[in-house]
């Protein structure tokens, strides 16, 4: 246990960086994912096709490969910000199609009859969108979005293997120094991850219960 307490500053530093990765790439992925989802459901066929191809390609590429591209090939192509930024780019790109899919299935999950009913009682396009469709879609979208964020939290650990000093990287460094206390150190790292993921999971469960649409 003393190996954990001695190195607590390292762990906290790693925790801070993990949170940073989570927050910034989470926001980035939400923005990019919303754009992709917008393209995906747009009336224009070529936008839809582009978004579909993007989603399929990125979703089927391993995160390790995406981060490898960011960590080694982008600098090779003479674009070299610090590794933290590169990892942010990689995580954002990798997460965005999952966000897009969650949003799209939320919007498409609203039955067509709802929109038809809204239109037939005389609401305009904007009104039916903002009073009828979006309130239902947003409720359905939040729990899967939080699940995407939980997955993102776990995925930040892969960035730790590409020179970013976050929780996993911190754990690895401490393990290298203190080979005698491997279990305690890794359990501490696990504990920090669980702080984030279980909190998010609880929020998702609560939101799900609170805003569930009765059908």
């Amino acid at each position, binding site marked *: 246990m003393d190996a954990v307490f001695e190195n607590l500053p390292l762990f906290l530093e790693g925790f801070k960086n993990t949170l940073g990765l989570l927050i910034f790439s989470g926001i980035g992925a939400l923005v990019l994912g919303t754009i992709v989802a917008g393209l995906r*459901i747009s*009336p*224009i*066929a*070529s936008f*839809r096709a*582009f978004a579909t191809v993007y989603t*399929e*390609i990125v*979703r*089927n*590429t*391993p*995160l*390790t*490969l995406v981060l*490898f591209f960011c960590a*080694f*090939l982008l600098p*090779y*192509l*003479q674009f070299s910000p610090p590794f933290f930024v590169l990892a942010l780019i990689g995580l954002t790109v990798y997460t965005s199609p999952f966000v897009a*899919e969650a949003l*799209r299935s*939320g*919007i*498409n*999950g*609203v*039955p*067509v009859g*709802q*929109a038809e009913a809204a*239109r037939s009682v005389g609401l305009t396009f904007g009104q039916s*969108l903002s009073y009828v*469709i979006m309130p239902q879609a947003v409720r*359905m979208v939040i729990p*899967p979005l939080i699940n995407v964020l*939980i997955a993102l*939290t*776990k*995925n930040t*650990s*892969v960035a*730790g*293997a590409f020179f970013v000093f976050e929780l*996993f990287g911190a*754990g*690895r460094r401490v*393990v290298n120094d203190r080979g005698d206390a*491997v*279990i305690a150190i*890794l359990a501490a*790292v*696990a504990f920090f*991850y*669980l702080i984030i*993921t*279980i909190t998010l*999971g609880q929020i998702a469960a609560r939101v799900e219960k609170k805003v569930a649409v009765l059908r």
Partner: protein
Amino acid sequence: MSSVLYDAPGPRARARSRVISVVGIVLLLAILTWLILAMGAPKASANGAVQPGLWDATRWDVFTDVQVWRSIGGGVLATLKMAGVAAVLALIIGVLFSFGRTAAHKAIRIPTAIILEFVRGMPVLLMILFILLVFSTGSYWAGVSALAIYNGAIIGEALRAGIQSLPRGQREAGLAIGLTPLSTRFRIEFPQAFRQMLPIIIAQLVVLLKDTSLAFIVGYSELLRVGVKNLPDFFGNRYLFSFFLVVLAIYLAMNLSLSWFARFIARRSGPKAGKLVAPAPEPMPDAPLSAGVGAGGSASGL
């Protein structure tokens, strides 16, 4: 395509969207061409040395060497070996988890729930490292067991959801005809739950296949490590990008075919299969979980 968001377009809107479509395609192609040309242009680095462009023949000549393809093939095999064994184990663990989670006794149910929650909140990479260091199994078994446990937990939850979504009458009927509770679960509930959740399970197996690349980090020589580390180390860094593209293409081919298979199964045995669907050609709204089944999915059924 009709959607919740907008009405079916009339002739004028269709014409307009066709025009925008064409403009969009042209724009995208232009951007893509520019990107490809920009990547192909020779670059001068800071010290004045000029690197050849990325599509230059000197960057691709290694691929005439049979040995290169042989090692890439070995990498693919290593990846598939890890994914295959982990997938089988994950299915077994998933079944066990789903049974533990739906067990009648609290003494089994609650510990299983805690273990599941713990495993699902944990990065796979951390589990791989833990198994590698604590049990010193070697990188192959560390990867296999971590992937099996993690994906087993998720498959287990999917199966549990499948079992719980069955009508209560299924279980009652099984018990009423005199099957034991265990036998009811195995013969009546489980086959239905498995069939219903098959698309999700296969989607999870795609995740498993992708995650084998994490074993790269603990030094297992699978496709990613062979392709972007071992081979460029041997032949020189100027081939890095070429190797990267080839590895990417192989991964995409493997994962896309598995995803396609998942969709095929989803169409045949998903929640909607077997039910009569609306006869109108208008696509039904996507079911929340079966992303992408959409328009094609409603045409199946009887």
